[in-house]
């Protein structure tokens, strides 16, 4: 089990003078899954983006530690994988070329077999050499999952992971989430009951 921990303390986010959420605190340890729910616009995606380091909080702190050592914010990207509707992949590249790029840019040695293995898990092996621009929205969502799992991160951030997926795809998300329980932590932001049910704890941002 990875020895990575996530601690979120008193997180607040304002956009201009509008309060999105305040005083969000939680701790997450290995094997745990946290669900985040809330109305549209309640800040679920923003909270995930703050944890990922893509957005600065108005107040509060996000801390990650690995083997009891604090991970600096600029190194956090190595320790997390993220799937979100707003995260797009390179449409002018094939799926395999996208994966090769993400391996190289993250400093993970590119192993074609490993990439194809993960693609097989999400049912994309046959389409590995297709340009992403020719993918359906469901196939793109599956490829986003591959991208997030490529470096086997101890923290998986899933923003509406079942978005655009068919029943097979949703089962794949279930498998990935339960497998991640053995390897690390997961935060799922969704309003789909089935997705939130994977979680051990749920934070409702609308309350």
């Amino acid at each position: 089990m990875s020895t990575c921990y996530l601690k979120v303390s008193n997180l607040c986010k304002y956009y201009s003078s509008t309060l999105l959420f305040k005083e969000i605190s939680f701790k997450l340890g290995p094997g745990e899954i946290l669900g985040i729910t809330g109305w549209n616009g309640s800040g679920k995606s923003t909270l995930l983006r703050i944890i990922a380091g893509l957005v600065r909080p108005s107040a509060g702190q996000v801390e990650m530690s690995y083997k009891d050592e604090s991970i600096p914010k600029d190194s956090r990207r190595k320790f997390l994988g993220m799937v979100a509707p707003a995260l797009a992949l390179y449409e002018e590249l094939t799926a395999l070329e996208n994966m090769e790029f993400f391996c190289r840019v993250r400093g993970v040695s590119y192993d074609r077999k490993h990439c194809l293995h993960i693609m097989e898990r999400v049912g994309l092996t046959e389409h590995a050499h297709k340009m992403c621009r020719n993918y359906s929205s469901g196939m793109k969502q599956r490829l986003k999952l591959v991208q997030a799992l490529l470096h086997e991160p101890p923290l998986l951030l899933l923003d509406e992971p079942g978005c655009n997926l068919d029943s097979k795809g949703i089962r794949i998300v279930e498998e990935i989430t339960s497998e991640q329980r053995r390897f690390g932590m997961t935060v799922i932001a969704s309003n789909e009951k089935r997705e939130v049910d994977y979680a051990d704890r749920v934070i409702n941002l609308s309350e």
Partner: protein
Amino acid sequence: MKSGRWITQTESSTYLNEAMAIWLRDLRSEFRTRYAINAILMFAVTTLIAVSFSIGAFRIGEAEKPFLYAVLLWIILVFSALSGLSRSFVKEEEAGTMDVLRLSARPQAVFLGKLFFNLTLLGALELIIVPSFILLMEYEIQFPGFFAAMTISAGLGLGAGTTIVAAMIAQASARGALFSALSFPLLFPLMITAIKGCERAAVGMDPAGWPEVRIAVAYVIIMIIMSLFLFPLIWEE
């Protein structure tokens, strides 16, 4: 249990490796889409043809040729660059890939990768436009070595200057206008130096110490170092 696999592999990552990955990906994308190269080359070739037909080799007095030709050459190069070099960052923003890149690579590596890509485009532009300009305009150059060094060093400066401005304007609206407006004051000293240097090379003035080349090289070094410090602030929200 797979714990540790990813962490041991990420340790071998260097800025240069990440930058090279971004550069190669940008090149691959550019070969397939030809967004930037088409914009740059179309502008450069049409301007060059317009200049060579309307002015030609015979309408300017011999005494004015070295200076005016240097001005025309750098106007073509700078404005062609401005027409396409912002694409390196703008296309990431438009395609929605900015965040996935933020999550995958370190800011300095992104800047270096984009800089390498812009320098590749500028290199291709100079390779096509400079010899064509010399041939079409019958541009006589007394010190070809100095002229080449001037063109290369000023090209590097042009790439460094436009890359950091492209990063700044990528998330703004009215990007095209902003890119030209912000680039102009930043590139103005370099343009003046490049024009002076090319004039000196054409006239045959003694380029002892290669002053303009040294200024352009200093500009490149300052611009890259400043950008490496500033870029993380631009790159993060």
